[in-house]
């Protein structure tokens, strides 16, 4: 199921040159902002929760998920070099699974780790806030990576659609229409975080059982369907 060569190539494509720059810049910004906030406001649980929830989980994790998830397969399909990979005796599902693992790992390293550090800077893990949001970021990384990897195999405009989902659906509609929140990776991850934190600092609109089931279903279905898409991939010409 896991092919080290495919993994190595994917890591190279994801972390090569400028991509690594933007991937690294976002976490650095988060940590810089939390240092500023700590200096400005001192340690405060509510502030820490707002910052980690608003900036880290709602904005940074999806964007890094989009870059890593679609970046793991999109450019290869885009420039046609994926045929060289597909012509090797490696199962398509293995390719997808390996790329998913890499995308998850990259998203986790660049989003969950800085979230954890930022949480500790902000309030030294008071009320388990840092740990709770780190767990949320870890869980969200898995679902986002699977979802955006699928988008990468389905559409040439994967990045845009991924961002539309992350920014318009989760952020805009999620704040206006309560029903949209049930269908949002962010809220599912928050449900898990709520369980970890225990207090009333981290809240979610979705119950924990629903959230875990939905998370698992989305991840598995997206990965399976991405494998199916790759089995019948047609290389379209440039528009």
């Amino acid at each position, binding site marked *: 199921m896991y092919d080290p060569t495919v993994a190595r190539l994917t890591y190279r494509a994801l972390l090569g040159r400028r991509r690594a720059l933007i991937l690294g810049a976002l976490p650095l910004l988060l940590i810089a*902002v939390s240092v500023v906030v700590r200096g400005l406001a001192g340690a405060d649980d509510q502030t820490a929760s707002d910052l980690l929830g608003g*900036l880290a989980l709602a904005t940074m994790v999806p964007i890094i998920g989009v870059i890593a998830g679609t970046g793991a397969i999109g450019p290869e399909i885009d420039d046609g070099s994926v045929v060289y990979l597909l012509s090797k005796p490696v199962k398509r599902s293995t390719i997808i699974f390996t790329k998913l693992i890499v995308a998850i790992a990259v998203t986790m390293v660049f989003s969950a780790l800085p979230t954890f550090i930022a949480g500790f800077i902000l309030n030294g893990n008071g009320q388990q806030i840092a740990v709770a949001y780190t767990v949320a970021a870890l869980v969200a990384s898995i679902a986002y990576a699977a979802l955006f990897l699928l988008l990468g195999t389905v559409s040439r405009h994967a990045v*845009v659609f991924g961002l539309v989902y992350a920014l318009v659906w989760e952020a805009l509609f999620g704040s206006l229409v309560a029903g949209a929140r049930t269908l949002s990776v962010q809220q599912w991850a928050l449900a898990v975080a709520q369980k970890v934190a225990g207090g009333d600092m981290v809240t979610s609109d979705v119950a924990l059982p629903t959230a875990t089931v939905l998370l698992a279903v989305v991840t598995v279905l997206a990965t399976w369907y991405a494998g199916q898409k790759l089995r019948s991939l047609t290389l379209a010409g440039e528009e």
Partner: protein
Amino acid sequence: MAVEQPTRTPVTQSGDQTRIHNIGYRTYDGPRLGRSYATRSLYSQSLRGAYGLGRSVKSKVLPMLLFVVMCVPAAIMVAVAVATKAKDLPVDYTRYAIIMQAVISLYVASQAPQSVSRDLRFKTVPLYFSRPIETADYVRAKFAALASALFLLTAAPLLVLYVGALLAKLDFADQTKGFAQGLVSVALLSLLFAGLGLVIASVTPRRGFGIAAVIAVLTISYGAVSTLQAIADAQSIDGGGSADAITWIGLFSPVTLIDGVQSAFLGASSAFPGGVGPSNGEGVVYVLVTLGLIAASYGLLMRRYRKVGL
């Protein structure tokens, strides 16, 4: 000792048999439309491309969808205002773009790379420069095209609001003033966003990566700035002297920059936490930074395209 080169003797008999036939090639002697015409063509082609016109159906979907998403809330607001015979529109002309900033950011992010990254990727830039146009013409045409496309996107809902307000028989002078202020503000916003988007997109030939980079710059900076402002606001209520901090933090993201400019000079109520926008003195700094950013992005684009190798 030099080896004697074999003298090359023509196989066929030279002389009378070879001749150059005049097969009637003619030089072009029609009108030459010149540099400004080429620039205008590039401008109109880029502007049409920004809405997917003249491109495949698939690439029309997103810009048109975003355009509709921009206009529909305005239409709903107008409908509500007309139906309830309200005294005023539910939202200020200047505020509309700030509320819809996520949609505008998405539009810039999707169309700026489509405008310049594909030229880089398919190496068509040298072909452009083999025509009479020069670096400045190319940059100006692309910049103007994206700014115009953005202006269309942001001004159309304002027009919907304005027409609706007149139909609802709201005060004409008041509405016209608000509409004019809104137009100035979205014109500034279009120039600023187009400049930032093009500078980022012109660095990378990869469309997907360009989109992610533009959206990261626009959205993350806005997220970070508004979070910091909210915290500074909470601090100033507690009694600290950081009310000024809200204003100065606002300089660091494009959306809050425009918000600051319009609340200082265009009669808008600020969307900053606490509702306190910059004063006139601070507003000057906002205007200078905005114009500086537009000029800087023009300068950077000129630098970027000074040499476009194959």
